[in-house]
């Protein structure tokens, strides 16, 4: 495999509501400028472009078409798009770099969740014959998953609240985070249920946002930054769509991706968990010791820009390497109902 690294990362401030268009241009223009200025490059230095977004979120077909105005793709660019979180766009870009056709790639994701009713829209990811016609919303699906673990003793409402407390406290030092706070566990547990057994703090907020990552191979990466975040393993997998047939207290696809990526020795793990119990589930599945710092950015619970939040995890995990503050980090991204599809990306720094 070719050595490929994350060399640049920028994200928009995560907000409950922005006033831009659903094609993301207003969020993308400044972060493209940020990431390119940081690396001292312009669009001509990028060999491949790949984005992640959703037509259903934007409410119009081909929403990604207008998004490329933010690039100014003249002359034409080598470009692709996934209808998924941009973490999967990063995977496609990583693959493109592995073919040797290009040495640099720029990956971006964007979503304006505030434009629609996200909980209802996500019901359209479910089986269109036997489930979607009932419109089970995304919080309901998460609530069913959370209850299974509570009933089995795998986690508890208190442990879930502890995740929320830590996430919001960590987010205090994340200038891009949407939610911060210092309430303690008992205060959170005194709040009413949003969807028993979930309280509001158990659920990621609705967020508008965008993120961008630049990848580079080998010497190009070393030219850009002092400490490239070398991707030592990246893999993803999908689980069954049949919620009633799948073990919702496990995440076979995360385990498979982690095994393929090789997660030993990670110091920091940015987990993409839109619900508190999903962090507890993944920590258990990944077998992390207490020494692994979990989601120090605050994670999706502090700001969840759909179709970018997984890419943000990779950016946040890479940032520790880029800054030299950690030697080996992991990022996880998820997509689909109840953690159906999962990606794991492990990065490390190396002495020059």
């Amino acid at each position, binding site marked *: 495999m070719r050595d490929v690294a994350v060399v640049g990362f920028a994200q928009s401030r995560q907000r409950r509501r922005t006033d831009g268009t659903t094609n993301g241009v207003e969020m993308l223009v400044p972060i493209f400028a940020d990431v390119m200025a940081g690396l001292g490059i312009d669009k001509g230095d990028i060999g491949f472009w790949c984005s992640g977004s959703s037509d*259903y979120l934007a409410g119009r077909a081909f929403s990604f078409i207008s998004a490329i105005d933010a690039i100014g793709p*003249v002359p034409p660019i080598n470009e692709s798009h996934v209808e*998924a979180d941009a973490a999967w766009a990063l995977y496609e870009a990583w693959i493109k770099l592995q073919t040797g056709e290009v040495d640099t790639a720029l990956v971006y994701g964007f979503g304006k969740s505030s434009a629609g009713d996200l909980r209802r829209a996500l019901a359209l990811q479910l089986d*269109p014959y036997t489930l979607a016609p009932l419109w089970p919303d995304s919080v309901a699906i998460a609530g069913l998953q959370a209850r299974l673990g509570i009933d089995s003793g795998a986690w508890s409402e208190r442990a879930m609240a502890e995740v929320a407390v830590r996430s919001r406290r960590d987010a205090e030092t994340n200038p891009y985070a949407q939610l911060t706070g210092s309430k303690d566990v008992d205060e959170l547990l005194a709040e009413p249920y949003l969807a028993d057994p979930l309280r509001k703090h158990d659920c990621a907020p609705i967020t508008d946002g965008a993120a961008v990552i630049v990848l580079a191979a080998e010497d190009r990466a070393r030219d850009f930054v002092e400490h490239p975040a070398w991707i030592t393993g990246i893999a*993803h997998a999908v689980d069954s769509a049949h919620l009633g047939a799948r073990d919702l207290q496990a995440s076979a696809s995360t385990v498979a991706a982690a095994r393929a990526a090789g997660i030993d020795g990670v110091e920091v793990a940015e987990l993409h968990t839109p619900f508190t119990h999903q962090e507890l589930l993944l920590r258990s599945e990944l077998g992390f010791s207490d020494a692994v710092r979990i989601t120090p950015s605050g994670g999706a619970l502090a700001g969840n820009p759909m179709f970018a939040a997984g890419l943000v995890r990779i950016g946040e995990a890479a940032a520790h390497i880029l800054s030299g503050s950690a030697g080996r980090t992991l990022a996880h991204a998820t997509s689909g109902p109840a953690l159906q599809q999962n990606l794991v990306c492990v990065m490390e720094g190396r002495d020059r």
Partner: protein
Amino acid sequence: MKQPAAVLGTGQTHHKAKRPDVSMAGLCREAIDRAMADAQVGWDDIDAVVVGKAPDFFEGVMMPELFLADALGAVGKPLLRVHTAGSVGGSTAIVAASLVQAGVHDRVLAVAWEKQSESNAMWALSIPIPFNMPVNAGAGGYFAPHVRSYIRRSGAPEHIGAIVAAKDRRNGAINPYAHLRQPDITVESVQASQMLWDPIRYDETCPSSDGACAVVIGSAEAARSVQRPGWIHATAMRSEPTTYAGRDQVNPRAGRDAAAALWKQAGITDPLSEIDAAEIYVPFSWFEPMWLETLGFVPEGQGWKLTESGATALGGELPINASGGVLSSNPIGASGMLRFAEAAMQVMDRAGDHQVDGARKALGHAYGGGSQFFAMWVVGSEQPE
């Protein structure tokens, strides 16, 4: 670095206006099962699945590959969903190829599909966007003015479009999977059909189809167990904005740049003599001569002469769309992959009645959006050096 990759097998559905006999999963599996049989592989042999489809509004399912994961045999494997507008079928095949070329996987299944009869494509594509004036032109209305520009620019005579339409529909009649099958169509009958979007006539427009296409792409090692695989010699993708000041909308630069990169990668200097068969995305007949120029088969302004000469018919110098092309079958998300698969079938000598004799190198081409997304590949009967 880049590993060799080859098409091991292809499959497609019987394309029809409506396929009320199958579910979405059933439609995909009809193509997949044929591709896997053609490639002589089983589910355990498949390392990853790549899915392509145009807008989710067509079927009213958000990211339908998620609910289809089980039927597509993707559970426990990597599943990737590509969406690059009308070029998506081509892009999907290219992404699948790159998974093998990157050395990550040995055998990848790619499937592209559209079940347009679940809704109404015209509805899905013309949902009124506030503050935007409806174009008031319908499906062909976007492209017809650019066809007029081409005619003005090239001086092409009026009957060129009809030649293409008659040829592609007659080709479709010998393709058992084609949606429209019109063996008796003639240039005269096309010219007698209703003028819809002047200068485009009814018989010069593509149908709206339910359908799917699948390909299995494998490494050199995997290709060893296949008789006559379709080797991937080059792939290219380019995008540009729908419109910008000074954009050439007849002969878009993204298409020219993609073609130039493609021929260079394939080591082709004279595509007209070196390519034996081409499957080009022609949803309206006039796009054949237009794309012949964009692709560099002939100089600008000369595409219509090649079409008029009969060179693009079966038996001609450069048979274009021997399968019948998009003018005969148009399951939007799958249409691009059908072009890529049909090109592979030609060099694999598996195209049946529409086989181009002795085809050794073939082009698959797709485009989408407002002629702004391009995806292409060259496949050959020999492993490239």
